[in-house]
């Protein structure tokens, strides 16, 4: 097992490195940061001067090395808009996003897992049809529209909840619900089909033949087998949650890095964009790594190899 973890750890490091490379390449090769940093009226000489000063004329490798070594020291350049180091601008807003994402994740599990199991156990019943319809709809509704609709209903019409910002814990409800719903729908669907498949297996018959109660058969024997699938799905959900955070934060004016990302893109604040992308992608890699470890713990086959 340690060998497997070690291998995955190495892969994660490589993945993170690959991400920095891609980010660097896209920013510096596909786009031209200089043009974006200066007003359109800047002359060619001014652009050249800035290019020289900021080291953009150096060979790409040198630039990359500079980028990498700075990055490892936490120096990602200066934010154009905030006049502070890009990294601190971003780090300030990370807690808000983490709160949002974690809450949304918990909500998606709280909704997704019970409905997935119920739906499979009471297959083809009215409850099952209802759950499946909601799950399907959950995957079709664009998150930003859902957020707006919820806002319209709960904040504007009913005035129960605030529309934006993070002044109180109340404000967390609508955004995390919006963010979590798509995930919940996905979990419901996957869990349902997985459970149905598992419940058709012979070892479930054996469990029943031993006289075990239905709840135990389902929760102990069936569900544990479904867990590995859920874990994989959950890993992918994190990506969706991070991406979805961008939109949800924009809709609800939530002060997190998602919103910052959109603002920075619109303001051409590339240093900040760079940092955010790297942080988000890295966290995704880290979460996947953790998921892999959990998977190991559950599945004895890998443990013993």
């Amino acid at each position: 097992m340690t060998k497997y973890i070690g291998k995955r750890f190495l892969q994660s490091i490589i993945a993170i490195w690959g991400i920095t490379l891609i980010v660097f390449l896209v920013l510096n090769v596909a786009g031209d940061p200089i043009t974006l940093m200066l007003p359109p009226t800047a002359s060619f000489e001014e652009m050249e001067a800035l290019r020289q000063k900021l080291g953009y004329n150096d060979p790409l490798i040198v630039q990359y090395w500079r980028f990498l070594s700075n990055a490892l020291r936490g120096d990602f350049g200066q934010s154009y808009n905030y006049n502070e180091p890009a990294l601190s601008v971003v780090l300030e807003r990370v807690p808000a996003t983490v709160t949002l994402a974690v809450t949304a994740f918990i909500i998606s599990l709280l909704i997704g897992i019970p409905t997935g199991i119920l739906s499979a156990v009471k297959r083809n019943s009215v409850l099952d049809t209802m759950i499946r319809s909601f799950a399907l709809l959950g995957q079709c509704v664009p998150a930003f529209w859902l957020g707006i609709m919820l806002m319209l209903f709960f904040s504007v019409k009913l005035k129960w909840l605030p529309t934006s910002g993070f002044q109180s814990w109340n404000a967390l409800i609508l955004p995390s619900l919006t963010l979590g719903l798509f995930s919940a729908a996905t979990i419901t669907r996957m869990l349902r089909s997985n459970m149905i498949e598992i419940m058709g297996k012979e070892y479930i018959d054996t469990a029943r033949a031993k006289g075990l109660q239905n709840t135990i058969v389902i929760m102990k024997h069936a569900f544990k087998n479904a867990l590995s699938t859920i874990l994989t799905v959950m890993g992918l959900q994190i990506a969706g949650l991070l991406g979805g955070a961008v939109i949800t934060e924009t809709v609800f004016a939530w002060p997190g890095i998602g919103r910052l990302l959109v603002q920075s893109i619109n303001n051409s604040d590339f240093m900040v964009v760079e940092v955010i992308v790297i942080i988000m992608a890295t966290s995704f890699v880290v979460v996947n790594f953790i998921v892999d470890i959990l998977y190991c713990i559950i599945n004895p086959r890998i443990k013993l190899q």
Partner: protein
Amino acid sequence: MWKSLKENRTGMAGIIIMLIVILMALTAALIAPFDPAKQNLMAKLAPPVWSGGTLEHILGTDQLGRDILSRIIYGSRVTMLVAFSGTIWAGIIGITMGAVSGYYGKWVDAVIMRIVDIQLSFPFILLALFVAAVLGRSLTNIILIAGISNWVQYARLVRGEILSVKEMEYIEAIRSVGGKNGRIIMFHIIPNVISPVIVQATLGMARIILMEASLSFLGLGVPLEIPTWGRMLAEGRDFMLTNPWLAIIPGVAITVTVLGVNLMGDWLRDYLDPKLDV
């Protein structure tokens, strides 16, 4: 096949929705009552007909007096164009990469699979945003992004099929009586791969439609003059208190379209499934 459709009403509904939207997109110029860009500040923010509006603007008008119905109809063009082209591109890239990877194996395979892994490590909306940010707003860029975000699933499918076919003993049997690679591909690999690819295509289309809408909502999609449902939502949001329908209607359009794609995809999966070799 028709029997299966008739039995499966949701699949039928999905296909009907798709046909309506496609038709809308194709005949937009003919059926839209107004020019979607035509502004009429006298009639701005008019409510839809069921909320006190006139029959002239059945779905109301936006903040610049543009007819919502026409903008919805024209918006379907972008949606369908991006959905189909994006899917086709994703398919082309994916199938090629998957085929090369599976067929040639060894380090080619290793490299391509690493790329797949790294790309999967990247939340795709992040990728889309990032590329959109750097490359700017244009229709081609969005289609490109759609292609890049979705090729991975096709690659894995094709590669998987090639690998499993490679293992099968009957391939040895065919080879031993002189069968050639081309024939093997034609008759053994492609038929098995078509069904899951088609199912994957419909699911991918749903993702692409949502992705385009999200990007347009954030202002990073197609150029701002082109009417698209995501953009309409973003604009409508500012006027939510005056005319909430501006924000509701485009969302309904998106949801219904994605629903149609998903229903069709689900039906296709069930229909094609019994024929798939496990």
